[in-house]
């Protein structure tokens, strides 16, 4: 059976003041029903643009190339009208900042009820009833009292719960969460991630979770993609990737995070491992491997041509020709 | 900088506005040295003539050349606009910056003063002033200038407040800099773009207000040519020679349009974020 969502060689080109910039440069992956996929990377790696490209919500002057097939139908060739039927209905989104994603002048109950009336054809009373049930499910205490509250009367965590309720309202097949907890406090972040994980299990939804934090991806998804410079540099099952990190960028990213209680604290002789330099600008991406200028292992071949995705283990691939120096070698 | 120019050339409303404004300025400038005919010379025999080679747009009821009057009228509009905007800009921006720097009762006072002044449109306060001091272009300039003060005061206070909230101002305070130095070194340079944009728009409004006052006979006095008074004088002949009303009308419309487009374009070019917020 074909996968629920197939992304094939997706390219996104943005129109910037400095000319066209390739934000996403050939991303391919497949998502099975009920699967959870994490996309991890730093700012400008193209992870958010990939997500927006999937659902046709890119900035006005962006162009896409490739194919995004949902149950075999290509979303990229659909009209805006057809896409509207997909967005919110079959693919639902949660964004980073719940304050800006909610309309400040409408009570939250109405914002949950709206897609219910639109996509599921419920009448006003039934939609309100359903909204109450959803608010209760996402863990808003005393939903009957909160349904007429405005977004500004809620805390950041509660607003994100409301966003999740809206996303759930039409029983989507895929939940697309772009940094859903980055703006929240640590303890609230845990609550929201737990809620998302429970809901995904409970409803058999697929999840695409986008984050800059390796930890968030590790704990909440089963498969992961690591993106750098608009490309997937490594992908595979989470355990496999963390167990046998192959791409120097993945390894560098992992080594650069200070970890609690690893005995490194205050040991000045052993500073944190760093990746030298900075993320390249989209407009002047180097030819060949985008990570080569920052990579200790880079050889001439890395700078000449984009390395292909090579198999590292079961379902585990990395776009690096120097993996014989990385896999199994301690950092 | 070249990037800025490239964007400017591609920006349609900026280019159209720029060209219209340039034409306005050029006409006024040329008229300082040369006009096709003497705009002040009355010639009863030549009254209400249709366009000809000597009188490109014809003559008015007193036989004066319309083209020459329009050109000299442009001077008048520009002078009124520049001075009125300068009055509003200097006093308004100062008040606004003081308001932003000294939150509290002083800010309240300045803002309530602004509200009070804004309650009287330029034309109304000009009528008030002329009622007291008599008609004349000086009074109309002062009236329009006073009307501009609160506009700039509110704008620069709001923009200044947002700059005061930024971390680089806090950093500057942590260096022990006082409110005055922070205002001059950080706040003012950062709000200049917004003020420039507003100034072009206020310039357009000043031209419009001057035309309105002159039309009512409260602004520029004869014989100095003025677009507003040309409209007024054309009134009596509007059914026989409608073109006399159309030419100054178009001149006003194109100048105001040009300045507004220029302001919009500048806003987009200086700060794309600002344009999106609108």
């Amino acid at each position, binding site marked *: 059976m074909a996968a629920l969502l197939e992304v094939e060689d997706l390219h996104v080109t943005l129109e910037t003041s400095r000319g066209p910039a390739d934000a996403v440069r050939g991303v391919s992956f497949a998502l099975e029903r009920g699967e959870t996929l994490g996309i991890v990377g730093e700012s400008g790696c193209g992870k958010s643009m990939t997500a927006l490209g999937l659902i046709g919500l890119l900035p006005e002057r962006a162009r896409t190339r490739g194919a995004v097939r949902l149950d075999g139908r290509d979303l990229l060739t659909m009209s805006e009208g057809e896409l509207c039927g997909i967005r919110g209905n079959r693919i639902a989104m949660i964004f980073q900042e719940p304050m800006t994603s909610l309309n400040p002048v409408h009570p939250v109950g109405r914002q949950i009820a709206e897609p219910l009336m639109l996509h599921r054809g419920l009448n006003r009373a039934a939609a309100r009833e359903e909204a109450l049930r959803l608010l209760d499910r996402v863990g808003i205490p005393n939903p009957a009292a909160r349904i007429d509250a405005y977004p500004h009367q809620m805390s950041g965590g509660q607003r994100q719960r409301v966003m999740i309720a809206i996303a759930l309202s039409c029983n989507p097949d895929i939940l697309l969460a772009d940094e859903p907890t980055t703006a929240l406090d640590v303890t609230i972040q845990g609550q929201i991630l737990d809620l998302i994980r429970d809901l995904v299990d409970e409803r058999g939804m697929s999840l695409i979770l986008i984050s800059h934090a390796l930890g968030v991806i590790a704990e909440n998804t089963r498969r992961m993609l690591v993106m750098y410079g608009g490309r997937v540099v490594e992908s595979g099952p989470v355990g496999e990737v963390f167990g046998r990190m192959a791409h120097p960028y993945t390894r560098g990213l992992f080594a650069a995070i200070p970890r609690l209680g690893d005995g490194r604290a205050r040991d000045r002789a052993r500073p944190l491992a760093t990746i030298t330099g900075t993320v390249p600008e989209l407009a002047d991406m180097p030819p060949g491997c985008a990570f080569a200028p920052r990579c200790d292992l880079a050889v001439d071949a890395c700078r000449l041509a984009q390395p292909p995705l090579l198999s590292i283990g079961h379902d585990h691939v990395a776009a690096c020709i120097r993996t014989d120096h990385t896999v199994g070698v301690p950092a | 900088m070249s990037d800025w120019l490239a964007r400017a050339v591609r920006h349609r409303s900026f280019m159209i506005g720029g060209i219209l404004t340039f034409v306005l300025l050029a006409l006024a400038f040329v008229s300082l040295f040369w006009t096709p005919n003497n705009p002040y010379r009355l010639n009863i025999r030549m009254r209400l003539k249709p366009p000809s080679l000597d009188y490109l747009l014809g003559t008015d009821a007193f036989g004066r050349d319309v083209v020459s009057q329009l050109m000299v009228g442009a001077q008048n509009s520009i002078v009124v606009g520049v001075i009125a905007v300068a009055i509003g800009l200097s006093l308004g921006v100062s008040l606004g910056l003081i308001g932003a720097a000294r939150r509290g009762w002083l800010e309240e006072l300045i803002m309530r003063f602004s509200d009070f002044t804004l309650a009287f449109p330029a034309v109304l306060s000009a009528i008030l002033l002329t009622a007291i001091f008599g008609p004349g272009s000086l009074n109309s300039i002062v009236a329009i200038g006073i009307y501009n003060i609160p506009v700039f005061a509110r704008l620069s206070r709001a923009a200044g407040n947002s700059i005061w909230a930024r971390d680089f101002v806090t950093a500057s*305070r942590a260096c022990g800099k006082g409110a005055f130095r922070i205002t001059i070194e950080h706040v003012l340079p950062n709000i200049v773009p917004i003020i420039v944009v507003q100034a072009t728009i206020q310039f357009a409004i000043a031209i419009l207000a001057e035309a309105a006052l002159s039309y009512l006979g409260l602004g520029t006095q004869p014989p100095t040519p003025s677009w507003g008074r040309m409209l007024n004088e054309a009134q009596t002949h509007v059914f026989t020679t409608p073109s006399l009303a159309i030419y100054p009308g178009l001149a006003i419309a194109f100048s105001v349009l040009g300045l507004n487009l220029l302001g919009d374009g500048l806003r987009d070019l200086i700060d794309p974020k600002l344009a999106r917020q609108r």
Partner: protein
Amino acid sequence: MLSVRDLTRHFTLPREGLTAPPRHVYALNGVSFDLAAGRSLGIVGESGCGKSTLARIVMALDKPTAGRVELLGEDIAGLDARQLRARRRHFQMVFQDPYGSLDPRQQVGRIVGEPLDVLEPTSKAERRQRIAEALASVGLRPTDADKYPHEFSGGQRQRIAIARALITRPSLIVADEPVSALDVSVQAQVLNLLQELQDRFGVAYLFISHDLAVVEYVCDEVAVMYLGRIVEQGPTGRVLSRPYHPYTQALLDAVPRAAADARPRKVLQGNVGSQIKVATGCPFADRCPRVEGRCHDSVPPLRVVEEGHLAACHLA
């Protein structure tokens, strides 16, 4: 070197009506700690715990309602503007957002040299020399002084901000979430830089962060704050490996771990309580998994639970 005693800061909210009594935000409710020269103290807590208010008061950008902030033996909260200005060269600040903390219309040299303008007016040549030194110490080139902030990446901008804080050779740098806006790979560079600068110049850090791992890496001591109070304090290694306060435990447990054997976490329920109410009992009682009757009755004092390790919990 820095000694904070019983620091309290209440903000008055606008009245809701003419007859309504004014309400207060209790941002800080009696915070005390000491920081020795050349050491680092981490302040950890979630939004609304008062850590940013604390930073502003220590930087003398805000006045405390009550309490003392002694820097090098002097209460800076009691100084007038002129006296304060003379002391400001001893403490500087680094902000969270490297985009908002640098004036976009000034060149880097002018930004970095700004503290010198007021605090140590010098000749042009010496000023240029000092700016070049400060830039070099954070790993930037002297020629970068002529560029504008937008020509730099986030990590480099944060280096510029650190250079500005260093130029007066301060004894204390208050760093308010200095790496949380940066990418992971760049964050490590900046953290290493902060360590290196401390070793070289002996500057003390008051390091405010929500990220326990970052605090563990940078700080000798840590203070955990909740609703305007320090609930646990002590040497970083000990507090984070053997926390006494349930809130510290919850914070530690909430950190997602990047590892192959990721396991589900115990998650703290509820939201951070309101800063508007005055707590009669333990401020954490509403969310505490181990709450008892006495927790609602009296505020637990911050007391020694082990040598150098304090916790404010009845159960500790």
